[in-house]
């Protein structure tokens, strides 16, 4: 039994989501290899080789992998799949984009967003916005799965010394081209890796008002999250959306401000260790899952909280 984990990276840095995926892959009960497909990504391969529990790193370094286009990377993984019993990727937008393409080409059902590995062929995954958990057994000989970061502890980033094998690029179909990206730059921790998250909702009322969330977050060393309504209204960019169809987070502390608590939002944060809700409506559903609820006007409470810390 050997599993291949698709590394999450940006050619320069290995992203922490890879570490959780390595843990999930190791729970399948065999060797774990990591694939780094990128351009100028030697440093990423070096970092992957240091992950505890990884025995081999495959490095496919080619210009066509520089932006991780699914059209180019899927054929590479398919060409390697013969040597593997399982292909694993973190549930990131990149993993979600690439892996189903691999599964279909292998004629295998993908198991999406695995939260728990019961055995090498049986997995727990959320359905209906996490209101139900399905235990599914795969009858395919190869397993192709994305894994939820919050379901698995991160493997140690150091301590390993895997062999790095350089592999050739696969033929690229030439039907897609990267045009550009507008990536958010921030000194705050990444949402999915943060210990504390302060999230704002529609109740913030404007993008200007979001600055009180940011200011509180900075005081706490926290990441900033948002509800869909806040993103739709243009208060903050899409990469902050927490929820069923956004990011799944489980920090030590999640502070929901001006967020009502729709099931789609809860789906993304209800596994947080401690939840605080600040909302002026005492009937807001968010209070049903909050450990500490404060019924208050956020424009008073948030600055006051920042001061009290």
């Amino acid at each position, binding site marked *: 039994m050997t599993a291949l984990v698709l590394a999450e990276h940006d050619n320069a840095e290995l992203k922490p989501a890879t570490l959780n995926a390595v843990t999930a892959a190791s729970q399948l009960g065999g060797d774990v290899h990591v694939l780094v497909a990128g351009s100028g990504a030697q440093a990423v391969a070096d970092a992957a080789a240091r992950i505890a529990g990884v025995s081999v790193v495959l490095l496919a370094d080619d210009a066509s992998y520089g932006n991780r286009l699914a*059209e180019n990377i899927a054929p590479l993984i398919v060409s390697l799949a013969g040597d593997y019993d399982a292909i694993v990727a973190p549930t990131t937008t990149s993993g979600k984009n690439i892996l189903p393409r691999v599964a279909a080409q292998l004629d295998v059902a993908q198991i999406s967003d695995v939260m728990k590995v019961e055995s090498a062929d049986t997995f727990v995954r959320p359905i209906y916005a996490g209101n139900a958990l399905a235990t599914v057994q795969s009858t395919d000989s190869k397993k192709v799965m994305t894994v939820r970061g919050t379901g698995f502890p991160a493997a140690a980033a150091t301590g390993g010394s895997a062999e790095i094998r350089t592999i050739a690029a696969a033929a690229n179909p030439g039907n897609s081209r990267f045009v550009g990206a507008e990536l958010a730059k921030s000194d705050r921790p990444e949402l999915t890796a943060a210990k504390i998250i302060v999230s704002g909702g529609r109740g913030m009322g404007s993008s200007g008002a979001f600055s009180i969330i940011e200011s509180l977050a900075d005081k706490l060393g926290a990441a900033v999250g948002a509800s869909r309504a806040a993103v739709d209204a243009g208060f903050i960019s899409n*990469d902050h959306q927490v929820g069923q169809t956004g990011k799944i987070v489980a920090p030590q502390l999640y502070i929901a401000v001006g967020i009502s608590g729709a099931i789609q939002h809860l789906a993304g944060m209800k596994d947080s260790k401690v939840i605080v809700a600040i909302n002026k409506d005492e009937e807001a559903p968010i209070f049903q899952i909050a450990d500490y609820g404060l019924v208050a006007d956020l424009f008073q409470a948030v600055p006051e909280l920042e001061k009290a810390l």
Partner: protein
Amino acid sequence: MKILVPVKRVIDYNVKARVKADKTGVDLANVKMSMNPFDEIAVEEAIRKKEAGQAEEIIAVSIGPAQAQETLRTALAMGADRAILIQTDDIVEPLAVAKLLKAVVDAEQPKLVILGKQAIDDDSNQTGQMLAALLGWPQGTFASIVKVVGDGIEVTREVDGGLETVALTLPAIVTTDLRLNEPRYASLPNIMKAKKKQLDVKTAADYGVDISPRLKTLKVEEPAKRAGGIKVKTIEELVDKLKNEAGVI
């Protein structure tokens, strides 16, 4: 160009799913069902492309029970031209849906297929990418902008770090994200007109596709409930609890 829009009938997004007592699945009896919200966005985008003179015909397709005809009628009322139901009472997994859609694509030859990024019942987020793989087409997933540029399309995608734009040759696959557009409501006259639009009913066997599932659902359970919390009266009390009771700051 012709645009194909696959639409799925799912539990309405306002309804909280309840697990059946025997743990075999989720109780859908007497539950409000609707078109998957991401598919409404897909239908809307196709209509806008037609209104902009970039598409001639929009075909809505659904795979599901007889009642999925209602979902297709909704798509027709919004502005799709005709519809195809591949009728089955079985659970059809994304891989099998993709195979059926490939067969429809082979027959209809659309230039663009716009799907939702995710069905809010199975939360798979697979079908569009799988269809792209089976057809060997490029894919613009999680789209927030779709522009026809020359003889291809440019798709701006919502990704974990922000936004990214890719250029794709046609034919291509697009899957929708929430910010792509705001779907219209069907007007009453259009709902009446939709009743007369063509809706063909087929079976998986008509397309020669094997839809047997690859995953066995062993059980479906409710997640652990969070223990109820408390209301605090003041910020001082909140800070005290976070420091001394929860120990998280």
